């Protein structure tokens, strides 16, 4: 099997020119230019010292031989020992500062990058999250940024290597010009070989990183849905899939590792050939007495010291590829423009709550599975499938009005709420709040005035109190109690092991669904929004909780514009106005009594619904058996 499953690019992936990538990578390190320079200098000094110690001690020892008397000899000995000691200590100090500084630079640059990419991800609208698995995004932000950090080390190592190569080159020239020229002939080969790995290294690294992201996403999904898997004994199926995904990552990363391991042996071969050539050429020269044997030996020593930094320079570009490919993945994520646009920064200090949907046009773009399922041609065709939801939709909601939206699944009820909250971007027409297009408001300020309760509440793995005060961290525990009270009572809280301070576990799994919804409601009430949207808020809760929420809501919707999306018609009888939606169009409008009087769609829905709850129906249901 090859790279079949899940290793394609995401839709937001793009390829950058290397020059642009490098420029941007450097931009992340440019605030740390000074420490990086120091790191390079220390690295250089350290290698220089290490190279100097043997040369110096050799020279000094040779001086011992020609020393005139015992005193002078003793002086040389002391001098020699002192110099060696100083140089070694210096080497250690250089190393200390270099390591410390480079750890700080890498740590900080990676932190900057993680922050930037997180900001960009948080700014995406919901259509982005509908499309891309969070597991893969997480892998990009946290794992790829680590590879990115390594580029700093590579940069400073290469810089100091260039200095070293220059020095060794000068030394070699001083010893023998002809031999140096022979060596020079080989240098281009080293670079050609190293650079030829570049493209393949980039491609295989990218695939390796993707493969790991797939593993990450798979693990995430497995254990998010573990309960279902358990109750249906699906472990072996998950396990089978895991084996595929894990094997895929294994193969991808092995290929990459294999390739990268070819570089150094290939370069060493060149080095070996160079040495062999030199010995033959130099040996002949020595034979002809054109070259002193000692000089020749020294030259060979220098050559060894010349090659090592040269390799570092030559392999810089291939090994830099993993940093670049990580950078490319991250920058693609940063550069994806959020679909929800903001045209102006009008601050909405206070919102009365008048809402106008004016000639609204909206379609979901189903950009699913572009390349990710191993059948790209088919996927591409579907890539931009539009699902039209609204076309020329008109609706005006008065400030403080409570409006219910009812209708079948797919009628567009939830879309309306999501558009109002700016979770998705509409394509035509406009939505005005207090007469201002919602695109002109400062997005965050605007959202503060809208409270939304979703059908399935999402809670954090944190304490109950922190969950309630999630939108308003300044709230104290009295406020939290008050909010819970408003949401239908706090009696149940005291039954929890640590009351308000109980940790309610991953996604609130310690609480029942009904309790979770009460917490979600309290969370919104604490924010005191001007516009309240209930998106089938009571659909997943039991009737006790529903009744509680219902009673709480009757109080809380006063003084706010409320949009209640419901399929349980019992819950909407008391609202000011009911709108019946069908395929994105309003088909009926009025209050409960009026709509019943019309004897149209609403009346039919209502009757069906109520019939199910009537005692007559129940008796019939019993007879069904």
């Amino acid at each position, binding site marked *: 099997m090859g790279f079949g499953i899940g290793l394609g690019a995401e839709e937001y992936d793009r390829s950058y020119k290397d020059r642009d990538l490098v420029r941007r990578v450097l931009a992340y390190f440019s605030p740390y230019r000074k420490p990086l320079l120091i790191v390079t200098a220390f690295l250089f000094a350290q290698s220089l010292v290490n190279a100097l110690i043997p040369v110096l001690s050799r020279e000094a020892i040779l001086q011992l031989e020609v020393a005139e008397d015992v005193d002078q000899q003793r002086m040389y*000995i002391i001098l020699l020992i002192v110099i060696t000691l100083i140089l070694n200590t210096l080497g250690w100090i250089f190393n200390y500062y270099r390591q410390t500084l480079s750890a700080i630079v890498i740590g900080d640059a990676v932190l900057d990058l993680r922050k930037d990419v997180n900001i960009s991800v948080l700014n995406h609208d919901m259509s982005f999250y509908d499309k891309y698995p969070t597991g893969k995004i997480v892998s990009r932000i946290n794992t790829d940024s680590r590879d990115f950090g390594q580029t700093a080390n590579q940069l400073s190592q290469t810089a100091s290597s260039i200095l070293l190569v220059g020095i060794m080159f000068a030394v070699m020239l001083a010893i023998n010009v002809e031999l140096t020229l022979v060596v020079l002939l080989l240098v281009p080969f080293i670079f050609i070989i190293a650079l030829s790995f570049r493209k393949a290294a980039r491609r295989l690294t990218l695939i390796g990183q993707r493969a790991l992201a797939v593993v990450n996403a798979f693990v*995430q999904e497995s254990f998010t849905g573990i309960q279902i898997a358990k109750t*249906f004994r699906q*472990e072996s199926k998950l396990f089978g899939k895991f084996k595929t995904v894990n094997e895929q990552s294994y193969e991808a990363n092995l290929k990459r590792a294999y390739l990268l391991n070819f570089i150094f042996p290939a370069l060493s071969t060149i080095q070996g050939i160079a040495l*062999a050539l030199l010995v033959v050429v130099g040996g002949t020269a020595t034979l002809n007495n054109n070259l002193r044997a000692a000089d020749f030996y020294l030259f060979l020593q220098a050559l060894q010291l010349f090659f090592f930094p040269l390799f570092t320079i030559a392999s810089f570009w291939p090994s830099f590829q993993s940093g670049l490919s990580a950078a490319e993945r991250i920058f693609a994520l940063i550069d994806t423009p959020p679909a929800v646009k903001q045209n102006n920064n009008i601050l909405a200090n206070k919102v009365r709550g008048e809402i106008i949907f004016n000639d609204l046009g909206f379609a979901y773009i189903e950009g*699913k599975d572009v390349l990710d399922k191993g059948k790209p041609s088919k996927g591409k065709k579907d890539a931009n*499938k539009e699902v039209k939801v609204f076309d020329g939709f008109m609706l005006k909601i008065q400030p403080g009005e409570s409006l219910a939206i009812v209708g079948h699944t797919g009628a567009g009820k939830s879309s309306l709420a999501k558009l109002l909250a700016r979770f998705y971007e509409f394509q035509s027409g406009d939505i005005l709040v207090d007469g201002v297009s919602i695109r002109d408001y400062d997005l965050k300020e605007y959202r503060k005035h809208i409270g939304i309760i979703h059908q399935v509440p999402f809670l954090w793995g944190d304490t109950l109190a922190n969950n309630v005060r999630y939108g308003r961290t300044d709230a104290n525990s009295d406020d939290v109690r008050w909010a819970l009270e408003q949401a239908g009572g706090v009696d149940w809280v005291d039954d929890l092991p640590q009351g308000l301070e109980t940790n309610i576990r991953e996604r609130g799994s310690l609480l029942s669904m009904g309790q979770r919804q009460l917490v979600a409601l309290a969370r919104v009430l604490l924010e005191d929004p001007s516009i309240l949207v209930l998106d089938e808020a009571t659909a997943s809760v039991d009737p006790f909780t529903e009744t509680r929420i219902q009673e709480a809501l009757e109080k809380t919707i006063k003084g706010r514009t409320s949009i209640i999306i419901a399929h349980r018609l019992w819950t909407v009888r008391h609202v000011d106005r009911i709108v019946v939606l069908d395929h994105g169009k309003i088909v009926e409008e009025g209050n409960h009594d009026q709509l019943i009087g019309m004897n149209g769609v609403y009346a039919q829905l209502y009757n069906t619904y109520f019939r199910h709850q009537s005692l007559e129906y129940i008796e019939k*249901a019993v007879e069904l058996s």
Partner: protein
Amino acid sequence: MQKTFSNSSNDSTKAEFSPEEDKFSHVRTSSRRWIIAHLLSGPNKLIVVIIFMGTILSSLLGSGFMVLIGVAIDEFSAGDSTNLVFYTLLFFIFAVGSPLLSLLTSLTRENLAQRIERDTRHEFYVSLLGKSQSFHESQRIGDIMARATNDVRMLNFMVSPGLSLLFEAIMRLLIPILFVAIFYPLDLLVTPIIFVILFVFTLRGYTRQLDPVANKLRGEFGAMNAVLNETLSGIEVVKGSTTEEYELNRYFTNAKGYRDAFVEQGRIMAKYIPLLLIGLAITAALGHGIILYIDEKLTLGAIISYVGLISNLRFPTFISIWVFALIQLAISGADRLLDIMTKESEIDENLEGVEKKIDGKVVFENVSFSYPGSDKNVLDKINLIVAPGQTVAIVGTTGSGKTTVTKFLSRLYDPNEGRILIDDIDVRDWKLESLRSQISYIEQDTFLFSDKISENISFGRTSEIGEIQRVAREAQADEFIEQLPEKYESEVGERGVQLSGGQRQRIAIARAFLTDPRILVLDDSTSAIDSDTEDKIQKAMRRILYGRTTFLITHRLSQIRWADLILVMRKGQIIAKGSHENLLKTSEEYRKIFVKRFNLDEKTLLEEVK
């Protein structure tokens, strides 16, 4: 095979799922032992030996090359050219042979590294699948992800380049000392031996210092991953509450924690003492050599090469900074993996347990339950007898324990006290596979895997599309599935079609039709279904209850009326049970449900009963 299973069920690694023989259960007591066991398991043993030999051989070849050059030059400068061709040939063989050898070594090493990563991840994943539901609820998924991807990767890095660098370091430490011992007066061994002793000693101090930082580094990474994963999973709430900044700060705090640990690690690596020691050793060697020279026991050339040999120890000293950091990180990573793997799963697969068709009698005997780490009972002394084929409705306020009660049937949890009997056999004595395959749940919020609709219905039970369509029709799901772009082949979940709560529930009902369970748990199941399909759904429901023991968590009167027995729960206790008529008369709690819900006054209700 069977023998191994029964052995492993005696120790601490009982699991709910064990698809293969567990070779490593006995070494999970310590991360070091576990890592070594992996390095030596099966063909890996051979690879480690190959890496070892390869590393030695290629470093010998490298120095052999230099010795040869020296010999050749000496001959040349003496004016002897007889061996020129021979040397030339030999040089080229060395020039190609040595890199080839190191290539082979490093390819083998990579192979081992990647395999260790794959195999330990595999082992970790299998272990996770075997954990109980209550275990999973106590874990942060983002942290689990970090362990499964990044911590496992640390083991890879430990092998490549860590392992071969370690071998190389050892070789490069021993060979110069060996040379000293052979070619020099024995008292010149004093310096290198003292150095090695101090080196080993300070190296221990170094790894001890690294240990807590490596742990912190891995832990912080896990926390950072957990926070990010949670934020992105709840992104709709984040946006709705405009807490992007708060979430960013939360992430930043963790990322900063990771950064601090990283810098701390850098600082410890920088403070590496052996590097200072080697400087002292070189100086001492120099001094010692000169003393011997003055006593005329050593020539000048000998001092130079002696000091040169001691200087060669700089390489292994320096490289050990990285080698031991890599090893330490791998140990921390392994600790984090083992930490999860050795946590006892409260429920085991019980392969020797009872395996037969369930008749459907269910008995609860004094069942009490509390979450780990809490002494408050979520359920308190539940007693219940249900005859085969009966339908039991459970009603009660939110948090009263309705859902929890049903989770004991298929052992998603085990009770702290009391027992549950199915067909008069304790559920703990059933084979887990047999038990779970005969019990189905239809949940309030149905989770769908990122897969095709057909797969989400069949879960691999059947590939016959006709069969899948039949159950979808029975569950009233056929109609909306047919309207999807690729019908039964449409992908759902994170990357595919988004289904509404009602549609997801119908998928779950279809699943249950296919599994044809003996015991069925319906949790509030029709509450999210559209009014217009309700008639059909009710019929589908009614059909699926037939002939099996069913627990209905519901407040729909229509469904309650199907029940043979109704339980009223409050605060983890059954406060009343009986028939609808009976309960209306005797239980105030029960009456309240209907009074509030249907605006009926109690009198009417009571009259209705009469």
